[in-house]
């Protein structure tokens, strides 16, 4: 009895669907496309997954913070970092190299994220509007810097698809934000974030500094997006201003599929990561089966809609169950 109960409770977790999808798709991939998961190609596969994972993780904190919180500028931030590295840093002798590159990525991500946070939490712009403007401005800047895709040549970001000893570099890029997130989980901030997401007025009157908590949430998301920009450069090997929006789409799909509530306060990083993995695995499964690109687009959209319907249905079903019990 207790075991079935446990399984039931696991199934009711918001990330259950994403986790099950990930496992199923992983199995399907191993049958159809085992090569991608061989030790030889594993680093590349993880490198290709990294931008998905980081975009999804970057979108999560703002949404958790509630109040309609959302950051749709995540994709363009990743693009900006990518383009800055390729067009400004790599060609310069002084600024080339991983130290400058990583610093620039982190500073840009954190800075833009914090600015979004200030627009939302301090200046009280509606989050969609604020990050829409950030996105427009960033897209403009990206096109200015790279009007057409710019080849990067061999450079330090190529390391993203290689390994340090047994550890794929891309895995480090994914794990670093996760580590930071669990570190933040040890502080009061994480509890504060979920409280603010649940009811900002209650948290405010109870003495939580809602503004600071939300600004940190956007800044953290921005930071993750900055890291995502490095991963993006590693797989694109060029500076490209056209890919950004695509990652916003993937990221939001992943957050929804991962069971994070769009109204805030429920869900988490794990769900987003699992959902990003599911989306990624689905994509490589389709390409391994030689499905043409237009179909990929179609399936992305269909997946997003499917994710909405499935997650909302299960979460409301759980809620009503909880009430009767």
């Amino acid at each position: 009895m207790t075991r079935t109960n446990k399984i039931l409770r696991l199934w009711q977790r918001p990330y259950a669907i994403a986790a099950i999808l990930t496992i199923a798709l992983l199995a399907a991939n191993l049958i159809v496309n085992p090569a991608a998961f061989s030790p030889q190609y594993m680093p590349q596969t993880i490198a290709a997954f990294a931008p998905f994972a980081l975009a999804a993780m970057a979108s999560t904190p703002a949404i958790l913070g509630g109040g309609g919180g959302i950051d749709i500028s995540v994709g363009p931030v990743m693009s900006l970092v990518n383009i800055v590295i390729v067009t400004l840093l790599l060609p310069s002798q002084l600024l080339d190299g991983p130290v400058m590159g990583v610093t620039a990525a982190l500073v840009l991500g954190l800075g833009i994220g914090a600015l979004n946070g200030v627009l939302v939490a301090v200046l009280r712009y509606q989050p969609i509007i604020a990050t829409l403007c950030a996105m427009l401005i960033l897209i403009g800047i990206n096109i200015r810097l790279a009007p057409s895709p710019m080849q990067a040549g061999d450079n330090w970001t190529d390391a993203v698809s290689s390994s340090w000893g047994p550890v794929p570099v891309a895995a480090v890029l994914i794990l670093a934000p996760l580590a930071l997130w669990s570190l933040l989980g040890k502080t009061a901030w994480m509890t504060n974030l979920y409280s603010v997401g649940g009811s900002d007025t209650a948290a405010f009157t109870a003495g939580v500094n809602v503004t600071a908590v939300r600004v940190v949430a956007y800044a953290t998301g921005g930071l993750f997006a900055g890291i995502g920009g490095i991963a993006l450069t590693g797989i694109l090997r060029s500076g490209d201003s056209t890919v950004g929006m695509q990652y916003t789409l993937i990221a939001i799909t992943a957050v929804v599929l991962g069971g994070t509530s769009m109204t805030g306060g429920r869900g988490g990083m794990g769900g987003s990561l699992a959902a990003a993995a599911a989306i990624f695995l689905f994509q490589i499964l389709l390409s391994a089966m030689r499905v043409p690109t237009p179909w990929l687009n179609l399936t992305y959209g269909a997946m997003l809609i499917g994710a909405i319907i499935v997650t909302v249905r299960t979460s409301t079903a759980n809620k009503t169950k909880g009430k009767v019990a």
Partner: protein
Amino acid sequence: MSSPTNAVSTDTPRAKSGRIRDILTRGKGRVPMLQLVMLTTLIILGASLIPGFTRLNSVYSMLIIASFLGLAALGQTLVVLLGGLDLSVPAFIVLSAMLTSELYGTYGWPFPAIAAFIVLVSLVVGGISGYISHKYRVQPLIVTLGVGTVVTGATLIWIGGKQPGSAPAFLSNFVSPVGTTFGLKIPPAVVLWCLLAVGIGLILRHTKFGKSLYATGSSIRAAELALVPTRRIWVSAFSLSALSAAVVGALLAGFSGSADLTMGDPYLFQSLTAVIVGGTAFGARGDYWHTFIGALLLTVLSTILIGVGFSSSDQTIIYGILILVVVAGYSRDRALRDRV
């Protein structure tokens, strides 16, 4: 009432600015004052900066471009009034442009049949976005992102890599600056836009549908308890949004003679910008007449920007800043302290 001098000195300007704000608040509900002032300023600026700005031909050109934008923003206005954003506008523009040129040019369908087909498809598919958003209480932004991607994907699959056929010739007259409407030397697209603006404006203000839409956008729970058919309202708004985008698609096909896969892209952010800069905001504030002014304002602005040598990427940046500036004036969230 006697109060200490320091209190008076701090109080008076506040009271005064409060009064001015009050007048502005009352006015802006009905007339987009700020936007009209900005539009007038821009027109004066354009006339002085750009040679030939006020010539009839260029005025008509601007009006036609504004009508594309204004029509694309028509449904968007309804969706924003309900508290959402419609990101599927470009998808429906491309779909409709493709259908118009391919079915006419390659398959030889008669235009009324094509029009009926486009209307049907856009109403149904747009309605699906509204239905899902309402039924599952999900932000329309996300749903329309998904539906838009599916529509774009489907269009791509249908067209494949080939060049679509060409659009009917009379559509080109419809959107030409030298086109005529019943003998009058006004481009038909502009006439259509103005008629629709008046029509939609009146419908929003004086019909049961309009009042129900505002009630639903203002508080969906209260609307349901007042027996407003909120789902029907949501489905209608999103259907109309897809339809208005489809109309733009057909007009654009006429404008450029055929269709391409990127022709809808600019309209995503421009339609949003026109609505927001026009003064319509979440929570059922504003109306289509605001958007009408917003579309004119953006068109004049971008004409000037291009005229003085800015690129389209600069325009995107300026749009972003413009929204921030305009929204700062009136449509930010209430402070947390005032919501306690």
